[in-house]
């Protein structure tokens, strides 16, 4: 019985391994011959969003527009453009939304500052609470007991 199970498991595993590569064969362009460019291409197509399917990257999307954009990334790489230039090229046309990693600008800078502000509010509140408690302990009264009585 156990033996059959092992065989079944092995079969499943083999099947899975056989199918795994096809799951990633979305990109039908021949790979770039230069390994450095190939790596940058992989990186950039994962940094750019597919505009039609929104939660997929260009690298993972089967939509024809994604294929067109992949081809454009490839051409820009071959033309010697830098990663930043390529990301700008895309965001100039499709807006910052195409970038998975949002850039800081004047409109969203408060998002970057918000944790700091919230943390300082928390720190001030904590400091005041601790100070009040300490004062009540000095007085010989318990802050919590007092608030229950009031």
């Amino acid at each position, binding site marked *: 019985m156990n033996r059959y199970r092992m065989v079944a498991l092995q079969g499943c595993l083999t099947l899975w391994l056989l199918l795994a590569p096809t799951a990633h064969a979305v990109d039908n362009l021949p790979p770039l011959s230069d390994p450095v460019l190939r790596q940058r291409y992989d990186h950039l197509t994962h940094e750019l969003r597919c*505009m*039609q399917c*929104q939660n997929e990257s260009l690298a993972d999307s089967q939509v*024809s*527009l994604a294929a*067109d*954009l992949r081809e*454009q990334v490839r051409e820009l790489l071959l033309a010697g453009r830098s990663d930043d230039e390529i990301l700008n090229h895309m*965001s*100039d*046309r*499709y*807006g*910052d*939304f195409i970038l998975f990693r949002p850039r800081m600008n004047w409109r969203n800078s408060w998002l970057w500052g918000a944790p700091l502000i919230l943390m300082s509010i928390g720190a001030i509140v904590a400091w005041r609470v601790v100070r009040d408690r300490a004062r009540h302990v000095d007085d010989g009264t318990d802050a919590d007991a007092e*608030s229950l009585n009031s």
Partner: protein
Amino acid sequence: MTRFLLPLAFFALLLVVLVVGLKHAPDKSLIPSPLIGKSAPAFTLSSLFDPRESVSARDLGGRWSLVNVWGTWCVECRAEHPELLQIKQQGLVPIIGIDWKDNDDDAQAWLSQLGNPYDRVGADRDGRVAIDWGVYGAPETFLISPAGKVVHKKIGAMTADVWQREFLPLIQAATTR
């Protein structure tokens, strides 16, 4: 008392912010175009009807015009077609068509069957021009000012309502000034 009121007030404020945010959130599937306010992207395409003729950014500017990106494979394009014909009939603005990743024969058949609302149609066979225009879902319609600037973009089918509410006021505001 303030011990309870302060957090409650904070909670109420948060609630208001969230409700307003939800009510006024624009459709998340519509992404604002970075092209608005900028010059229309340069392009040159061969005409759908005559490969020797070209359709280019020079056909825009000097007057108000619409650029409509469509394709015969696009369902919504069929839905908006009657409205485009209507706009052509009004004669206020010429419509320049960009036939996106389409088959020329299909496109010609479509226009002869449904009527041709376009002044000129360029065939964007490999989809490059559409990328320069930041197109991601046909149909898309751009309003181009006489100065050659992109003034407005509509993603999705043009309807009489959209035309009257979003496009006409922009043209009228500029011409009556």
